[in-house]
C-alpha cells in the first residue's frame, strides 16, 4: 500500500517535470515562429516603404501653344520637316508661361524641369493629330527625374536633391497650383528599361521572365517527370542507376552560377546560340531546375501506397497501365508542387543569367524567344547597382512585382495540390 502511494507520488512528480518540459518546448517553437515572422514583416515593410513611390509618377500639366514659327514646322505630316523641327521650345515656353516669375535667362533651368522624352511625346501627338498645329492645348508630360525625386523625397536625407533653389521654388509653386501632380505610374508597367528613371519600366523584364519560364517549364517538367518515372518504376536497381541517383542529388546542390558557366560554354560557345536570349536562359534554368523536379517527383511516386499498385497488378494491369492509371494520378499533386517550387526558384535566379548575357541594357520589350531580353531579378540587380538614386525606388518596386509573381506561383501550387489531391 505504501509502495503504491509512493509510486503515484513519483509519477505525479515526473508528470510535473514532463509538463514543464513540454511547455518549454512549445515556447521554443513559438519563439522561432515569432523571429521568422518579425524578419518577414521587417523585410516587407522595408521593401514596400522604400518601393511604393516607384509605383507613382510625377506629371506636369502645361498649356502648350503649337506655334509654327517657334517650331519651324508647318505640316506635321511631312516627315522631313518633322525631323528638323523643334519640339522643345514650345514646352519650355509653356513652362515659362506657367511661371510668371521666370526670366529669359532661366530657359535652361526651365527646360530641366521637363522630362527629356516629353518632346518626343509632343512630336508623336502632333503626327497623329496634325490639325493641332497653331492651337493651344492642355497636355500632361512627365517631369524630369530630378523633379520627380524632389517631389517624392523632399526632406529625405537618403536622396540628394539635384535642383537649384530657384527650380525648387518653381516646382513648389507649380505643385501648389496643382499643375505638378503624382499619380499611378502606368509607365512602369508599359515600358522597358530606360536610362531615364522616369521612363524606366519592368514590362521588358516581365515579358523576358515569362518567356524564359515558358521554356523552362516546357522542358523541365516533362523531362523531370519522365526521368523520375523511369528511375522509380522501370529502371533496374544496379550500380549505374545508383550512380545516376547520387549524381542527380549532387546536381541539386551545385551552385547556380556553375550552370550559367555551363550554359555559356555549351549553348553559346559550342552550339553558337545568341547571347542574352530567353531560349538560352530557359535552357540554363532547365538544367538547374531538373534535379529539384526529379527528386520531388520521385518522392511523390514513392509515397503512392504499394497497395494501389498491387491492386492494379492483381487484375492484370500492365506496368504502363499501373503507372499511367494509378501511380501518376496519385503522384501528380506532389510532382506539380515540386515543379512549381523549382520554377519559383528559377524565376528568382540571377547568377546564371548574368553569365549568358541576360544582364544587358535592353530597352525594347522582347517579342520572341530569340529577342534579347532580361528578367525581373536581373532588372532588380541592374537598378539596385545604378548610381542614380531614382532607380533605387524602381528596384524596390521591381522586387515587389517579382514577389507578387512568386506568391502567385506558390498560391497556384497550393491550389493545384488541393484540387488534385485524392484521399484513399
Amino acid at each position: 500500500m505504501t509502495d503504491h502511494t509512493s509510486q503515484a507520488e513519483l509519477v505525479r512528480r515526473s508528470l510535473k517535470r514532463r509538463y514543464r518540459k513540454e511547455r518549454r518546448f512549445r515556447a521554443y517553437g513559438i519563439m522561432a515562429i515569432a523571429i521568422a515572422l518579425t524578419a518577414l514583416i521587417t523585410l516587407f515593410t522595408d521593401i514596400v516603404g522604400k518601393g511604393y513611390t516607384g509605383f507613382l509618377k510625377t506629371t506636369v500639366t502645361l498649356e502648350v501653344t503649337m506655334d509654327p514659327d517657334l517650331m519651324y514646322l508647318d505640316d506635321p505630316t511631312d516627315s522631313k520637316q518633322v525631323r528638323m523641327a523643334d519640339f522643345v521650345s514650345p514646352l519650355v515656353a509653356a513652362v515659362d508661361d506657367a511661371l510668371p516669375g521666370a526670366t529669359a535667362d532661366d530657359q535652361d533651368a526651365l527646360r530641366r524641369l521637363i522630362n527629356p522624352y516629353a518632346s518626343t511625346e509632343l512630336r508623336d501627338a502632333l503626327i497623329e493629330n496634325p490639325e493641332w498645329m497653331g492651337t493651344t492645348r492642355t497636355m500632361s508630360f512627365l517631369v524630369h527625374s530630378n523633379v520627380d525625386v524632389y517631389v517624392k523625397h523632399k526632406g529625405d536625407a537618403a536622396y540628394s536633391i539635384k535642383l537649384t533653389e530657384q527650380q525648387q521654388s518653381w516646382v513648389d509653386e507649380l505643385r501648389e497650383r496643382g499643375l505638378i501632380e503624382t499619380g499611378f505610374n502606368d509607365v512602369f508597367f508599359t515600358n522597358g528599361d530606360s536610362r531615364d528613371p522616369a521612363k524606366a519600366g519592368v514590362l521588358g523584364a516581365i515579358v523576358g521572365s515569362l518567356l524564359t519560364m515558358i521554356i523552362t517549364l516546357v522542358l523541365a517538367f516533362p523531362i523531370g517527370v519522365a526521368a523520375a518515372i523511369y528511375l522509380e518504376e522501370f529502371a533496374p536497381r544496379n550500380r549505374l542507376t545508383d550512380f545516376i541517383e547520387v549524381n542527380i542529388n549532387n546536381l541539386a546542390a551545385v551552385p547556380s552560377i556553375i550552370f550559367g558557366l555551363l550554359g555559356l560554354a555549351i549553348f553559346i560557345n559550342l552550339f553558337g546560340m545568341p547571347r542574352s536570349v530567353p531560349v538560352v536562359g530557359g535552357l540554363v534554368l532547365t538544367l538547374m531546375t531538373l534535379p529539384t523536379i526529379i527528386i520531388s517527383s520521385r518522392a511523390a511516386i514513392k509515397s503512392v501506397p504499394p497497395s494501389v499498385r498491387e491492386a492494379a497488378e492483381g487484375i492484370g494491369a500492365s506496368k504502363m497501365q499501373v503507372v499511367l492509371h494509378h501511380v501518376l494520378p496519385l503522384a501528380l499533386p506532389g510532382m506539380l508542387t515540386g515543379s512549381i517550387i523549382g520554377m519559383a526558384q528559377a524565376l528568382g535566379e540571377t547568377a546564371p543569367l548574368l553569365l549568358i548575357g541576360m544582364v544587358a541594357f535592353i530597352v525594347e520589350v522582347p517579342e520572341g524567344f530569340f529577342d534579347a531580353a532580361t528578367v525581373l531579378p536581373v532588372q532588380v540587380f541592374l537598378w539596385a547597382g545604378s548610381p542614380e538614386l531614382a532607380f533605387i525606388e524602381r528596384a524596390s518596386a521591381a522586387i515587389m512585382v517579382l514577389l507578387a509573381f512568386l506568391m502567385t506561383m506558390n498560391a497556384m501550387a497550393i491550389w493545384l495540390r488541393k484540387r488534385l489531391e485524392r484521399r484513399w
Partner: protein
Amino acid sequence: MNTMSSTTINQVQAPEEKVMPVTEKKPEDTVLEEGVTVGTPFADDPKFKLRDVEVFYGESRAIKKISLDIARNEVIAFIGPSGCGKSTFLRCLNRMNDSIDICRVKGGLLLDGQDIYDPKRDVVELRARVGMVFQKPNPFPKSIYDNVAYGPRIHGLANRKSELDDIVESSLRKAGLWNEVKDRLDAMATGMSGGQQQRLCIARTIAVSPEVVLMDEPCSALDPIATAKVEELIAELSESFTIVIVTHSMQQAARVSNRTAYFHLGHLVEVNETSKVFTTPEHELTESYISGRFG
C-alpha cells in the same frame, strides 16, 4: 519497490511452465523431410500442377520443394503459423512475386498444363486468368463503378457502355454488394466501410471473369459480421471459380474450404479433406497446430 516487481515476474512466469512441460518433445523440433507431404496432395486433371516449387529471397529459401495439385472449382485453404511461406506460395500462382527484385522461383508451376514461369509467358494474361484479393482492402481512389469497370476496360471485355454496365452490375451482384451500392455507384470507393471495400475488391477481381481467385487473408482486416458476409460470398463463388485462400483463422478454413493444406517453415506438411484435417490429422505437427499448441 524491489520486492513488488520481483513478485510480478514470478507470477507471469508460472503459467508458462504449466503449458509447456520440459519433458514433452516440442512439435517445432520435428525434423521434416523435404518434398514429403502426407495426405492427398495430388489430383487428376488439376487446374494447377505444382512440382518441387522452391522460392528464394536472396540467399534464404522461403519455400522448400513443395508439390501440390489444385483441382478445378475447389476451395483450398492454406493454413500454418506466421512466416511458414503460405502467402509467398500463393503469390507464386500469379507471379505477384515478380516485382520483388530478390525473389526467385524454381520448380514446375503449371496452369492448365502451361508453365507459369515461362519467360515468354505474358504476365498480364496470366493475372487476368488468376485474379487476386489482398489482405487489406485496397480499392482504387476512384468511384465504385470505376473500380469494378477498371479490369474489363483495360482488358477490352466490353465494347459498349451498356455491356460494361452489365458486367459491373453482375459482378457487384455476385459479390453481394449490388443492393447496398446501386444508388451510389459514382461515390468514392474509399468512403465505404472496410467489409464493403473488401467485397468491392472481390467484385473488381471477378469482373475480369478469372478462372482462379487467390485470396491472401481476405478477412484479417474485417470485423466478424463483414467476415461472415465474405465467407458466404466465397461459398457462392466456389461454384464458378477455383479459389485458393490463405487464412490465419482455422475456423474460417474449416467453414469455407474443401481441402486444407498445412504449411510449416516452408514445408507443405499435410494436405487433406478439410474435415479430415480438423478431426483426424495425419501429421503430428498439424495436430499440434490445430489444437493450438503453437502458431
